[in-house]
């Protein structure tokens, strides 16, 4: 016993230092017990709760339903079951309800802001009305099949890249700029609407459908975002209502599409959250002294 103690006293302790040449009694490839002592694993991993993830996934299902509704309107208009007057009525009622929601959910209501919105929207509508004759014959030389194929691709691209956590169109006082992907997504949806509009019989049709599509793609994320911020319960109720309406309307159009949509909704709000929770256990995050230090203040260039 004494021997071991005196030996350990004689032998200098290994130190984690680089200076002073090779440490006496230790090779350069010596691996101490303290090796990887400072490694931290899974330090910033969030424990996720199934219910919470499912609730969050409702935003995705909701937006999927909104896009499906837009496609339904497109399909109905192309089938000529929806005429331009009812389309214009739909536009007006959407504008009205959107404004109402914005007014009710905003904390500070100001006439100035309202006036600002109305001015912008009237510019927007006038511009669209003047452009409608250009959109109308735009794709005359292209076959309908190609247009449908491109439109479906663009809508899928739009859904894939859409920013589900916020809205691309921000309130005038928003701090964060939208990301590149969300802008690409928005543009894809606008191009899809132009393609669809160009297949329609009259200029008024074109104007009405363009106004409708742009209203939804530009402002629906913003409106739903406002609802979500105002009250989460209202958001859930609104979403489930929307899902029910969409499913019912799709059922009247096509049974197979209905099954597809139902399957997709279940996949998004039940299977995916469960899957995410399951694969959490494979999470493996390594941090240690080799990481680049993070600055504790904001760098503005």
């Amino acid at each position, binding site marked *: 016993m004494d021997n071991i103690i005196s030996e350990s006293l004689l032998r200098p302790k290994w130190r*984690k*230092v*680089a*200076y*002073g*040449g*090779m440490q006496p009694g230790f*090779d*350069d*490839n010596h*691996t101490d017990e303290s*090796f*990887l002592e*400072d*490694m931290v694993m899974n330090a910033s991993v969030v424990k996720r709760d199934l219910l919470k993830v499912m609730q969050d996934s409702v935003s995705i299902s909701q937006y999927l339903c909104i896009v499906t509704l837009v496609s339904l309107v497109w399909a109905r208009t192309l089938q000529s079951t929806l005429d331009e007057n009812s389309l214009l009525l739909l536009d007006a009622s959407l504008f009205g309800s959107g404004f109402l929601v914005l007014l009710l959910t905003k904390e500070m209501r100001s006439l100035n802001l309202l006036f600002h919105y109305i001015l912008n929207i009237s510019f927007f509508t006038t511009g669209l009305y003047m452009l409608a004759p250009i959109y109308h014959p735009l794709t005359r030389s292209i076959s309908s099949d190609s247009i449908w194929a491109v439109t479906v691709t663009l809508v899928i691209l739009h859904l894939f890249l859409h920013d589900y956590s916020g809205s691309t169109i921000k309130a005038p006082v928003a701090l964060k700029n939208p990301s590149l992907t969300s802008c690409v997504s928005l543009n894809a949806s606008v191009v899809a609407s132009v393609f669809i509009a160009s297949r329609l019989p009259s200029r008024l049709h074109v104007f009405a459908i363009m106004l409708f599509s742009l209203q939804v793609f530009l402002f629906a994320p913003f409106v739903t975002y406002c609802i979500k911020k105002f009250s989460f319960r209202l958001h859930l109720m609104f979403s489930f209502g929307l899902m029910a309406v969409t499913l019912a309307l799709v059922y009247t159009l096509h049974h197979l599409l209905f099954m597809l949509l139902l399957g997709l909704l279940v996949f998004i709000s039940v299977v995916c959250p469960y899957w995410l929770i399951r694969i959490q256990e494979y999470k493996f*995050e*390594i*941090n*240690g*002294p*080799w*990481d*680049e*230090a993070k*600055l*504790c*203040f904001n*760098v503005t*260039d």
Partner: protein
Amino acid sequence: MADQKHRILMVSDFFFPNFGGVESHIYYLSQCLLKLGHKVVVMTHAYGNRSGVRYMTGGLKVYYVPWRPFLMQNTLPTVYGTLPIVRTILVREKISLVHGHQAFSTLCHEALMHARTMGYKVVFTDHSLYGFADIGSIHMNKVLQFSLADVSQAICVSHTSKENTVLRSGLPAEKVFMIPNAVDTAMFKPAPERLGNDEIIIVVISRLVYRKGADLLVEVIPEICHLYPNVRFIVGGDGPKRVRLEEMREKHSLQDRVEMLGSVPHAHVRSVLISGHIFLNSSLTEAFCIAILEAASCGLLTVSTRVGGVPEVLPEDMIVLAEPDPSDMVRATGKAISLLPNIDPQQMHNRMKKLYNWHDVAKRTEIVYDRALKCPDQNLLERLSRYLSCGSWAGKIFCFVMIIDFLLWRLLQLWQPTEEIEGVPEFTLPHHQDEEIISNFNKDQSLG
């Protein structure tokens, strides 16, 4: 075994006329290995019109392979493009061992792969740290895993770097050696006369980029100037963040207290260092940091962020460490200023002479070479199994890459048999003295 002389090929994209930690490491290590009687050949890519074979001090032969750099001094990764020239150099120079430097260097990775295919023993030195979180690092780590899967021995420049490399590459820890950089203390001597203490000058020499903590400097410098009226700053170096520093100088009206030198050639670093009392290093990540050694060798007290391998570099009484946030760095600088009267630059220089020495580094590297040569030879199949264990998909891709490389090598053997490649004639240069090497090194720089 100990007096066995090796014939070593050093491979890296980074070499003179470029300047930095890796470049000087390769240069000094090669010089000291030459002195130990080994033969050293360096292979790098062409720099501007510097292409072909050049000789440097002490008969160090450098192949500037005519392969253009395309990004950050790296050659375009072509995987197999460099095989013929690597093979010719290995055969011509009768190389016994290949030593690659730096994980960023594509030329190094390719040469190591070809050398392994041809059955050479390879050693790899990692000079940098890498995280695990972003896409760039994940990709880089996979490449490193591929390169190191079959390496004979690896060297890291600090213990932190060793931990990092072991985690990134999955090498067994006992295969990784820790051999630090060193500093040429004869080149970094303190000022002949001690500076007065009524005005304290803080020197910063680094590239002014985010990773070197230029943004920290922007916060720290005005605060220190405000707290200590007798402090002046000299900032050497250039980079994208220089504008921010200049803005800071205007904003706080510190034009007469913060001097911006712009980029400082390596030959002038000492003259800048000896005009100051304290050296400030604000890096956010650093595997070793040679700049600290150079400053300490010039007798400056160092204040540095506690990141990466920096805490291992100097004994506690020669460096003041701070967390990488402005308030702690101001505190550490204050502490350094209060310690200053007890610091004797000449004494510090003498201590550095004992702590770091390139000859010691070369001797320790020699041991690694001996170990590498003792590793058993393996045939292709045995080696492929190592690559296969690198990952379910990556493993198969790595194997495929290696098999193609092997076939190409065989093809080259048929096309130009080894016996037909002419070996280089042997010659030995008279022994050089230390001082001479250094003066020549300085001359090389001014020419470059």
